[in-house]
């Protein structure tokens, strides 16, 4: 206990240092020689002074070494001088190891008076360590008892205080019996007990010693120092002695550190790195429970104590003496190096519960595969959690703090082990249905993050059910913390999966025999669950940004599962999450969403590439639905933020698509561009600031000024404001091909660079099924300034690798559907439909090839203004072109032919595919993208998709053309051409 205090003190060096100085000066003043000078010197030492001091110290030591006859202090000035030198040196920098032998010999041999001996002993402060040999010789002096009792006592106290500075202790342990014999002395007994307490190892506990101690106990009664020593004996050998200490006792040993306290802390500070770790031996009996509770319902973390497993060896102890030294008792385990040295014969504590608070044992647990350890812990923890659960057990609510602490400890251990305990999982499943969501909230939620990943199919009913109920009925902050925990749970699972992947080569599999598909299902279930509750929570909480942040944070993990965690799973957020984020009032959410979409794209593209490279049917492929969903979202996003036609182009069933009439009724003037990066409520503030900077004199806040080059500046401005997500999204998903740069490449046609006239493509990742029949939404030229074209991801490698122009490659791609055997009947039907209409070459663009010069696209851009009065059928898009007659020379390289007033890319007539639609007359000059009006799902079932929508198109097609994002109209592009 004494040692415990000292270690505590040493943690407050400043304070101790202070008290020290006064301490030291106090006892120095008692001495005759004036130490003031030497005290004042040290700060202004130069090297010479140092040397001279060193000399005088050596002289002093040699004086003490040689002195023969007893000298009285008062008469001998030489002695006074040397004594003062030793004292001052000791205080300033401590004594070198060599000096101890000499000085201890002198002090204990009784040559001088006790006053001198006392002063010598008090100044025995080590600079670094104390050699063990000097102690051994001084013990021999002790045994011949040349010195007085008080000096002996002081010496023992000195050993106790300096115990941690003794370099080795093996020989000292050998002297255990000598020290033990000093117990007889009543005065010395307390200190000797303390010293023995420090020295005792399991092998020093012998029956005869116990008997001796018990005799002393009988003679002296209950003495704290004897109790402490006996309890340590019991600790090591419970089979020999038994004692129960009351928890009231705080200190068991008298303070023996007094005279050296200050000096010791000074040394510790000096050689902080070297000084040994102070860890008091555990008595294991000091847990004091003030309250009265039933014996087995107290929440006590058992102290680590000797295992009783050695009880088994009691009988054959004599025959097998070596066995004892082999095992390393857990209470001696104090440093990591000890753990490393003894890891092969470490003895585990008798109660496994104690490992929770013992980091070294947790290390040990981590590296051994002993089932019984986990089982012992499992049983204990399971029962403790069950009994102490404050909301399940009646009358235990008063112990909530305690339970909290316990959960905290368990969670810490889980974090340390990077592994969940199965007993915690069971506890959560059992108790969550009764949880009020308030009691020990953060602890319970944190425990939840460590639910082990297993293909446990009942997780839904055990975890998700109760959690969802609480989630919907609790506060915003609870919702956020649940989402946070679920995110961590997901991350822990994914990390676990990564580790499993890494250690796959091990023949010994993890106990959870999870197949990859089972694992994917469990993870997917979690993500879907979070998607569901997030969408509902956003409704409940009015799309508050705070909540949205946590939801998007979750999806930041989800969107990267494939690349970062190597798990073939990507799940898009539900529309209930996506659209609130897209239309959020807060740039943070929008930026986060942009980043997430960027990562989705990266993952999907990588997945496609892997599929292409491996050229084999992988066990797991992302379903086409994922691609479709991504594309739908992407179209909606680009429509909103970039091309300013959000309400038309969105093809998501839950999307923003609104009929023109409805929009008109809103009487909002420029509804088309109300969500582009200038007018978006989350970004308008930036636009305002940008305007102020760009046109400081203009107070009209004319947002329409931001176009053309200013548009680019504005983008740069946004990026500089920290909207990195937006930057990544725009740079990756909207590939912006400046016509200027194209013309520099000198391909085919030179185009007069016009301000702000650049092509933009919205890069989508195409699904397998989509490849031949492109979706309408992304593809159409979005207007003069911006042209988003569709990507056919599938074909792209062909396109990219092929030196041939894509126009010629295209027909090959059409029937290539047969390459994909695993596609369902509906898809096959679609492919057949597509085969009738061979895909238009400029639909087939690989994203990576986007920057490569590709004649077809430019020709398209050029051709557009020259085509007129008819429909351009591009894949399954129909571009309605009115106005001038087409220039056949430009149309030819594209393989376009006018068929009955329509332009068909392959030259085939619509009629051949069964289409009978008449050419449509669109008033005014415009180029209109024609999104498919039928819902997506319905379309996918139509085998010959093209003609049918075309026939139905009459109504929607009559809508006025949608202008481009930045106010540039179709007419302008025409002018540009």
């Amino acid at each position, binding site marked *: 206990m004494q040692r415990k205090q000292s270690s505590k003190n040493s943690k407050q060096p400043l304070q101790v240092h202070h008290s020290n100085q006064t301490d030291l000066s106090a006892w120095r003043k008692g001495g005759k020689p004036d130490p003031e000078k030497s005290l004042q010197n040290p700060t202004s030492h130069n090297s010479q002074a140092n040397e001279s001091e060193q000399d005088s110290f050596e002289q002093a030591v040699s004086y003490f070494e040689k002195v023969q006859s007893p000298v009285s202090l008062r008469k001998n000035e030489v002695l006074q001088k040397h004594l003062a030198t030793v004292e001052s040196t000791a205080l300033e920098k401590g004594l070198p190891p060599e000096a101890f032998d000499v000085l201890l010999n002198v002090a204990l041999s009784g040559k001088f008076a006790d006053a001198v001996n006392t002063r010598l002993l008090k100044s025995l402060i080590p600079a670094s360590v104390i050699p063990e040999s000097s102690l051994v010789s001084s013990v021999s002096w002790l045994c011949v008892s040349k010195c007085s009792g008080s000096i002996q006592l002081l010496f023992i106290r000195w050993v106790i205080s300096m115990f941690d500075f003794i370099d080795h202790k093996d020989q000292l342990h050998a002297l255990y019996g000598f020290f033990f014999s000093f117990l007889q002395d009543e005065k010395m007994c307390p200190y000797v007990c303390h010293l023995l307490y420090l020295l005792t190892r399991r092998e020093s506990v012998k029956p005869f010693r116990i008997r001796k101690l018990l005799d002393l106990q009988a003679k002296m009664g209950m003495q704290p120092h004897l109790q402490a020593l006996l309890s340590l004996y019991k600790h090591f050998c419970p089979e020999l002695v038994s004692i129960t200490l009351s928890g009231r006792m705080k200190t068991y040993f008298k303070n023996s550190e007094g005279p050296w306290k200050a000096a010791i802390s000074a040394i510790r500070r000096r050689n902080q790195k070297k000084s040994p770790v102070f860890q008091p031996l555990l008595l294991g009996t000091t847990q004091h429970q003030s309250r009265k509770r039933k014996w087995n319902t107290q929440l006590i973390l058992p102290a680590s104590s000797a295992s009783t497993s050695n009880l088994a060896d009691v009988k054959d102890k004599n025959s097998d003496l070596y066995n004892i030294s082999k095992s390393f008792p857990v209470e001696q385990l104090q440093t990591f190096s000890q753990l490393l040295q003894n890891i092969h014969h470490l003895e585990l504590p008798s109660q496994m519960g104690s490992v929770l608070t013992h980091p070294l044992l947790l290390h040990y647990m981590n590296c051994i595969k002993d089932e019984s350890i986990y089982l012992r812990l499992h*049983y204990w923890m399971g029962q403790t959690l069950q009994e102490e659960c404050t909301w399940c057990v009646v009358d235990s609510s008063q112990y909530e703090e305690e339970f909290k602490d316990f959960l905290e400890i368990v969670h810490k251990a889980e974090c340390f082990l990077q592994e969940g305990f199965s007993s915690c999982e069971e506890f959560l499943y059992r108790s969550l249905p009764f949880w009020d969501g308030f009691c020990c909230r953060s602890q319970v939620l944190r425990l939840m993050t460590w639910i082990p990943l297993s293909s446990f199919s009942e997780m839904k009913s055990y975890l998700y059910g109760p959690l969802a109920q609480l989630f919907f009925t609790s506060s915003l902050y609870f919702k956020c913390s649940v989402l946070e925990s679920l995110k961590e749970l997901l991350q822990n699972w994914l990390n676990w999966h990564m580790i499993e992947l890494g250690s796959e080569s091990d023949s010994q599999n993890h106990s959870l025999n999870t197949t990859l598909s089972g694992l994917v299902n469990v993870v997917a279930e979690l993500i879907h669950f979070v998607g569901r509750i997030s969408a509902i929570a956003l409704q409940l909480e009015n799309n508050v940004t705070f909540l949205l942040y946590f939801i998007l944070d979750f999806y930041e993990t989800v969107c990267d599962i494939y690349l970062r965690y190597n798990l073939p799973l990507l799940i898009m957020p539900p529309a209930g999450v996506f659209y609130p984020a897209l239309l959020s009032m807060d740039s943070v959410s929008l930026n986060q969403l942009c980043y997430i979409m960027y990562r989705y794209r990266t993952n999907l593209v990588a997945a496609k590439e892997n599929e292409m490279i491996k050229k084999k049917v992988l066990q797991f492929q992302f379903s086409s639905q994922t691609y479709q969903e991504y594309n739908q979202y992407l179209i909606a996003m680009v429509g909103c933020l970039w091309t300013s036609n959000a309400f038309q182009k969105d093809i998501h069933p839950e999307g923003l698509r609104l009929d023109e009439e409805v929009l008109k009724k809103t009487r909002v003037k420029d509804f088309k561009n109300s969500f582009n990066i200038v007018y978006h409520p989350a970004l308008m503030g930036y636009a305002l600031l940008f305007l102020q900077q760009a046109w400081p004199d203009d107070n009209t806040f004319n947002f329409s000024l931001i176009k053309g080059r200013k548009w680019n500046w504005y983008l740069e401005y946004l990026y500089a404001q920290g909207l990195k997500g937006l930057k990544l999204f725009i740079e990756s998903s909207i590939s912006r091909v400046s016509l200027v740069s194209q013309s520099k490449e000198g391909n085919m046609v030179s185009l007069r660079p016009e301000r702000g006239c650049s092509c933009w493509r919205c890069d989508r990742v195409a699904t397998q099924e989509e490849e031949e029949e492109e979706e309408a939404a992304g593809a159409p030229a979005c207007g003069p300034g911006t042209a988003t074209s569709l990507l056919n991801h599938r074909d792209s490698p062909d396109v990219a690798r092929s030196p041939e122009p894509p126009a010629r490659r295209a027909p090959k791609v059409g029937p290539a559907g047969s390459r994909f055997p695993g596609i369902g009947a509906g898809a096959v039907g679609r492919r057949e439909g597509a085969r009738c209409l061979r895909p238009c070459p400029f639909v087939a663009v690989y994203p990576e090839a986007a920057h490569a010069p590709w004649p077809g696209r430019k020709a398209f851009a050029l051709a557009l203004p020259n085509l007129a009065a008819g429909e351009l059928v591009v894949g399954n898009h129909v571009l309605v072109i009115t106005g001038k007659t087409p220039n056949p020379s430009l149309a030819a390289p594209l393989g376009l032919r006018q068929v009955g007033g329509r332009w068909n890319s392959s030259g085939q007539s619509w009629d051949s595919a069964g289409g009978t639609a008449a050419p449509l007359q669109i008033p005014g000059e415009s180029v209109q993208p024609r999104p498919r009006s039928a819902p997506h799902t319905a379309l996918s079932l139509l085998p010959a998709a093209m003609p049918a929508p075309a026939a139905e198109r009459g109504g929607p097609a009559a809508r006025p053309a949608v202008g481009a994002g930045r106010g540039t109209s179709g007419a302008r592009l025409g002018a540009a051409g």
Partner: protein
Amino acid sequence: MPRVPGCAHLWCWIQPHSVTARPAWAARSSPHVLLRAAKLLRSGANRKQRVNPAGRDNENADPQKAASLLRKQWSLYSVTPLYKFSGARLKEYARLLGAFIAAEKQKGLAVEVGVDADVKVTFASLPELRGDPQDQPAMLVQLSSRSSVSPKSSDEKLIWSGCFCCVSGEDLLENVPEDFTCLPLFLANGAESYTAMVGSWFQKTFDCHFCRLSISPLNLSWMAAMWAGCSVEKNACATELVFSVPCLPQPLDISYAIHPEDAKALWDTVQKTPGEITQEEVDLFMDCLYSHFHRHFKIHLSATKLVKVSTAIASAHCNGTIKLLQSRYLTGVLMLLTELAISQIQ
């Protein structure tokens, strides 16, 4: 405790037609059929239990030791498997536990192990108390005080006893490594302070955990049904069910006593397949009792909580105490309790 007037000793006449048309005597179980409890917690409402004659006939058992369990009020505990426990070293354990108790009683004074203290500890094995050969033999721990006046006199007074047992606990045994000893059910009789000492010694020494085992009303109703079906000799005491009325300022208990033969007759009509009990049958049995009670007293017992069942076989209270009365059905009752204990620790 107030009782509903006039119903403290109600002798009921059960009308078989109110239950089923089956003849009441068709399915009498043989006296050797031992009760086999269900996996009560895990299998939910649709549980179905085979009442198989699994238990060995304990006619040959040492009547002395088995008798020491009878007619005593036992507190029930569940105990997680004992780590590194060895049945061969009971004497040594007795010495250690004796020293531990001595040290506990005189806090602060060390006690040498093996020195005679005023409390003597004995460990005894009860191999007859088990259902299957795989079960661990039960272990009886007894504390007896030596009179301080004449230490050498042999009159020792039994002050506390505890029994660890496992009757047909193979469910638990299946997955447990050999370092562990499964004795999941612990019965204690005597001062709680001694239970605490013995319990904490076991917890420290064998790294196990003790937990009070309370019996839910559902399980009590199972006990009532199962024990009603057991044939007992005539002049047996009445089958009594005690119900507690919830949500009252003062506790009110209703005692409902039935003649054991009537209870058996009712159960026999309810039980469809001999040797098998289902939850539906148990519910039906209790509903019959409730409706009968309601007819007489207009009290819906289904709205109250069943707190105690006492029959000629045994009596059990929901707070986790039990009194065993019939040596013939000893293992049967312990089997049921073992199941409950296992479901609590798993």
